[in-house]
Every structure is written in C-alpha cells, then in structure tokens.
C-alpha cells in the first residue's frame, strides 16, 4: 500500500531533526537545556557552527599578528634608513669642517648646510619631513671616545661633527604604524646619532716613480711639473713628518731620493727635480727600456723599512706609456716575481712588452697588499693616437687603493686633482660613532 505524506507528517519530521542536538558539556540532555528556558543558556549549549565561531574569534588575532610583523619589518627598515641618513650627513658635515676655519668668523653655516643637504638627499623632506634640523648638526671635539660640543666646552677648534636624525612626534615626522591607531599607538619615535671626525695634516708618505726612458725626452718638463705638484701637496697639506722619495726607472730602478722628511730638505728636493733628465744624460741611468715593475718593487722595499704610524703610503707612477722590454736580463730587483713568496718569475730574459705589463700589474697588486695606494699619471703626447686609449686602460689597471689614474693632465688639472688627492689623503675623515 503506497504511503502518502501529509503536511502534518512533514512538519513532524522537521521538528524531530531540529531538536536532534548533542548535549554540550555541562548540559545533561537537550531536554534539560530546553527546560531552563533561557535563550542564553541555549546558545551556550548549542554546538552547531562551533568552528565558524572559533574562526571568527581567531581571525582578528591572526590579522593583528600579521600587521605586527609588517610593522616590525617597516620600523626596522626606517631605523636603517635613518642611521644611513645621519651617517651621510655627519660625513658630509665633517668633510666641510675646514670651512669653519677658513670662514674667518668661525661660521658653521657651510657645515650645517652640507649635512642637511645630504640628509635631505637620503630622506627627502617631502616624504620624511625635516629629518635633520639645523640645531641637530653640532660641531665639537672628539677625544678619547667622547664627543663634546663647542657650546659645552667653549672650544673654538672643532674636529668633529655630530648629527642627530629625528623621526619623532615633536619634530612632526614620527613613523606611522599600520593600524596602530586601533590600539592607541599610531606612530613610533626614532632617533639616531652619528659622529664623524675630520683631521688634516696626517702623515702622507710618497714615492714618486719617474719614467726616465728616452721616449719621455720631449715631455720631461711635464714630469718635473708633476713632481713639484706632488711635493707641494705633501709639504702644504700633510704632516711635517711626512716622507718623500723619488725613484727613477728605465729597465731597472734607481733611487734618486731615498725616503726622507721633505720639509727640512725642500730646496734640495726641488733642485733634484729640476735636474731630472731622460736616461743616458749626465747623472741619469742608462737607457734599457721602461720597467714600471722595477720601480714599484723598489718602492715596496723602501716602504717596508719605514714604520710610520698611521701614515698613508702612496706610490705615484709618472710615465709616457706602457712598459716596454729591452733585450736585457731582469733580476729579482726588477720585479720579476708575481708575489713576494713566488719562486717562478714571469720572465728573466727575452721578455716581451706584455710580460712587462704583467710584471707591473703583479707588483701593483703586491703594493696594495702591503697597504700602499698606487696612482698613475700618463703623459700621452708621444703615444700614437690610435694607441692612447689602450695605453691609458693598461695603466689604469695599475691604480690601487684610493689612488688616482690621470691621463694627460694639464698643469691646472695637476694642481686641482693632485692637490685634492693629496689634501684628502693627508686628512682623515672617520665615522667615529
């Protein structure tokens, strides 16, 4: 007999399903729950959609955790940026510390302006506000690990600049925290301080290597001019105890002036430079090619016997082209060994021009390893135009450390570039804190 479901039967079925609940902990039976009659109690006892409730409650915490992680990352980045900004500002300010003395009225304007300019270059005002206010660029003295401002010490001889960068509410540029306002911390304050010291007149020990090969005959006056520029640079900017020496090269090296303090014998050195001539002339070495390696090797040996404290050691090679070989036999003193401990020479006889360049490069690398900067000055007047660029590139490979590599410098360039190089070398710009 077929069964016909009536509407009443259907409603009865639904009711049965709706009351089919499992009792929650603390609830004896569904009937017990229902018998209490309180809606709140029913809700507590109802286990349906428990996961949905759990998720709804835990998601805000998960999101908050993610926001916290993002904020930590961002704040770390901003702290790094702030530190780099004040570092750049302090170095720029200290580099211009000489303007305090040269201004005539102990003006700090240039120092402050330069420090602020570099702070702005790293953290533009439009984005980050004024990170380094003028009042936070302070001149002072750095001594025994302590900075004392001029205002505090009453000194008028600053040797350092301290810069403080601000990302604070008081400065109007605090770092925003993502969703921080929800927990009452909308911004974070950051400060960072860097101190840079600047000192001039440091020891600047220099050996000039003069290429006296015959090819340099027509440009010997330029070589003398360069020598004098370097000498003037050393005596004008470096410490009086700085050492100066001249070594001549052809196929071998000849020490024309052993390393000595330049100031006491300045006239003698100038006279010696004025008397420099190309090889084969009176008092000059015999012509035998052009071996830069020999000069650099000799300079390294000379420097190794000097123990100047905190001195900058420099080799300045003045030449009119790349090294060239002569049919002679080269020895240890000619820089034939790639390293001081090497036992296999690059070549001893039948050396090629390429061998001579390799030898020079090896010696320049050895010099740099010994803490010596290497500069090159190339006078290209006698070099065929087609080869000038390759010669310049080859000589540039000899430059090491903070040396410079000049090509056909005019007298003005020698004065400005070498003068700038020398004054910088003889100064000490340091980030001290």
């Amino acid at each position: 007999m077929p069964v016909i479901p009536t509407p009443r039967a259907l409603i009865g079925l639904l009711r049965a399903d709706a009351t089919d609940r499992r009792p929650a902990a603390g609830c004896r039976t569904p009937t017990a729950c229902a018998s209490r009659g309180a809606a709140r109690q029913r809700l507590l006892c109802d286990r349906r959609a428990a996961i949905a409730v759990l998720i709804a409650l835990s998601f805000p915490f998960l999101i908050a955790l993610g926001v916290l992680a993002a904020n930590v990352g961002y704040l770390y980045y901003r702290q790094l940026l702030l530190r780099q900004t004040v570092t750049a500002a302090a170095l720029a300010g200290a580099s211009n510390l000489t303007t305090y003395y040269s201004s005539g009225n102990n003006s700090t304007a240039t120092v402050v302006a330069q420090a602020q300019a570099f702070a702005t270059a790293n953290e533009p005002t439009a984005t980050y506000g004024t990170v380094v206010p003028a009042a936070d660029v302070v001149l002072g003295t750095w001594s025994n690990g302590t900075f004392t401002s001029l205002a505090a010490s009453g000194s008028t001889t600053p040797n350092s600049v301290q810069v403080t960068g601000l990302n604070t509410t008081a400065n109007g540029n605090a770092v925003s925290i993502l969703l921080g306002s929800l927990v009452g911390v909308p911004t974070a304050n950051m400060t960072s301080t860097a101190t840079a010291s600047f000192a001039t007149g440091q020891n600047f020990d220099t050996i000039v290597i003069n290429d006296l090969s015959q090819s340099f005959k027509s440009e010997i006056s330029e070589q003398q001019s360069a020598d004098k520029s370097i000498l003037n640079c050393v005596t004008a900017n470096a410490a009086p105890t700085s050492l100066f020496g001249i070594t001549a090269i052809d196929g071998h090296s000849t020490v024309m002036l052993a390393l000595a303090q330049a100031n006491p014998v300045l006239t003698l050195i100038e006279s010696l430079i004025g008397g420099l001539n190309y090889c084969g002339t009176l008092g000059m070495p015999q012509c035998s090619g052009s071996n830069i390696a020999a000069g650099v090797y000799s300079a390294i040996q000379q420097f190794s016997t000097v123990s100047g404290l905190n001195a900058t050691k420099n080799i300045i090679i003045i030449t009119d082209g790349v090294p060239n070989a002569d049919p002679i036999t080269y020895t240890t003193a000619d820089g034939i060994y790639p390293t001081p401990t090497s036992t296999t020479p690059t070549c001893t006889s039948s050396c090629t021009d390429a061998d001579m360049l390799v030898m020079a490069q090896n010696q320049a690398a050895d010099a740099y390893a010994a803490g010596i900067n290497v500069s090159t000055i190339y006078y290209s007047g006698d070099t065929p135009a087609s080869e000038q660029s390759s010669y310049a590139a080859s000589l540039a490979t000899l430059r090491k450390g903070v040396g410079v590599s000049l090509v056909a410098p005019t007298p003005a360039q020698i004065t400005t570039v070498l003068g700038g190089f020398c004054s910088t070398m003889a100064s000490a710009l340091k980030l001290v804190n």
Partner: protein
Amino acid sequence: MNEAQKFTHHPLVPLQGMRAVATWRRCRDLVHCRRSTAAIEFAMIVTPLLVLIFGFISVSAIFYTWSSMQNAAQYAAMLVSTGQVKDVSTGALSPSNTSATTRCSSTLSSSDAEYYACSNLPSWATFTVITTENCAVPSVEVSLSASASAAAIIDIFKFFSGETLTAQATLMKEGSCP
C-alpha cells in the same frame, strides 16, 4: 520499493507534485546532514587563511628585500665615495661618464660599483642599479630598484602588482672627482 517509486506509482497523486516533494525532502536532508561538516568548514576558511599566510610571507619578503637593497646601496656608495671603486658597468667614471644604469647580473666586474650594489641581495628578485657621480657637489648616489611583486616571492593575489621598491643612498664624494 523506495520512496520515489512510491510517489511515482501512486495513481491519486499528480506526477509534478510527487517530484517537488522529493526534491524538497532531499534539500531538507542535505541541510540537516552532519556528514563531512569538517570538510565543508575547512573549505570555507581555507581561502581567507591562505590569503593571510601568503600575505605574511609576502610582506616579510618585501621588507627583507627592501632592507637588503638599502644596505647594498649604501655599501656601494661608500666604496665609490672613498675612491675604492672608480668604475661603473659602462666604464670608468669621468666628467663625461658620470652615470650608469644596469641590471644586476653575474657579468658585472668586481671593479664596478654596481657589483657591490648587487651583492647580498635576495635571489628571488631582479634588480636595476643606477650609479651617479655628481662632481659639482661632489657626491655619489647609488639607487636600486626592483618590482615589489617579485620581491614578495608569492604575490598570487597581485597585491603588489605594478609597485616598485626603491632604495637609494647618497654620500659626499671624498677625494678627487672623478
């Protein structure tokens, strides 16, 4: 005989009414069925949960990349500033060659400033570096940029699409310039 057959074969009940009741009953059973509820609930929460997890990873990767870029830019600028590096990928820095724009790659030489700007950067993104020397100041600026989407590693929801991460460091040039 099942329920459907019962409804279908009763001569007194119209055919369409039988089907409607059967459909309604199936829906009612589905609503109250407790089987596989965990799977359904998991399916409902997995999407927002994945959004959160991948979001955390992406944001962390971006800040790591950004900080690395800032460090590398500063390091390269410092090396050029102090005269320890004088070359860029297009040759030696000189009055006529004061800027270079290049992509970080393994072909850069250790004598190039960009080589150092491209060091210690995350491997999952591609970086472009611009080195500029301004002898009028004198200053040196190293700027690194990368696609934020690439820096995020997993940007499946394209949150960072079209955005660019930039880190830039400017230092005073010491010594001679160039």
